[in-house]
């Protein structure tokens, strides 16, 4: 169990690592180019792993609705946005605000799909997050120009 918990934390660390590296690439190139390389290198990597392990086309992927295939284009904008923001507002602000946006939009989506859940917990959670975003606005210290 501890091993799986460690792996879940590691996954989070890798999200940050990936954003940091993509942000560095965007500093030399552009946010869009950084997003392109992120997707292409990721594609090559996943293809290699999938060919080794097998089962890439298992199940009935043809049955998925058409809109499920829009994750890629959305991801292009998402990765480009992260790469663009991280040198400008820092890794911590980028991570916290993305988390805030993800959580609140997740609640909206749950309400839209009428997913079961506690309304009071949702209200308190969303208010907490909005409060945190409100506190974050203000002067930041930057040690030196990069």
């Amino acid at each position: 169990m501890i091993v799986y918990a460690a792996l879940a934390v590691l996954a989070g660390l890798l999200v940050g690592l990936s954003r940091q590296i993509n942000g560095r690439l965007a500093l030399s190139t552009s946010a869009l180019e950084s997003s392109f390389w992120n997707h292409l290198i990721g594609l090559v990597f996943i293809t290699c792993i999938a060919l080794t392990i097998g089962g890439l086309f298992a199940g009935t992927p043809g049955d998925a609705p058409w809109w499920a295939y829009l994750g890629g284009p959305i991801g292009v904008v998402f990765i480009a946005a992260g790469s663009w923001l991280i040198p400008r507002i820092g890794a911590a602000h980028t991570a916290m605000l993305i988390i805030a946006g993800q959580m609140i939009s997740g609640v909206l989506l749950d309400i839209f799909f009428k997913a079961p859940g506690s309304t009071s917990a949702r209200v308190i959670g969303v208010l907490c997050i909005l409060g945190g975003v409100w506190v974050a606005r203000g002067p930041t210290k930057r040690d030196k120009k990069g």
Partner: protein
Amino acid sequence: MTDLVRGTQSFHFAAAFGAGGLLTLMVLCNGTLAAHGSLFFASWVPHLTGSIVALSFLVVLRPKRAAPVRPPLWGYLGGISGGVTVMLTSATMNTALALSGTIALGLAGQVVFSLFADVRGLFGLPKRRPTSRDYISMTFILAGSLILIFLGGGA
């Protein structure tokens, strides 16, 4: 802080917040693919279509390179880290941690890494020292997230 700086910061914050919304839509799309096909398929397809769409954008928009010097080779490896993430989360989601535990621990990992990355200026990005205001904000956002993950029913 001048109004201009504050306005720019608000724009950046709004963009990051909006990116979080895009992430929700992306997870919905990729999760729906995973419900019909394999987990590999659900990661492979968005990387394939994403590469094609990003390349098309590059060809049409031709964004200027920010610096004439070539970026370091490791700068191109961010995608591998992302690929490993997909595999790790797919593995832990099916244990006792479930989706909620995987997301909560993932948030912890992201926050720890981002603070460390800012303090050290990891990988050549600007160094930043988090203020007490940042820690307070972070506590609120994380507390709200944990409430939503564990008590809000669905994440």
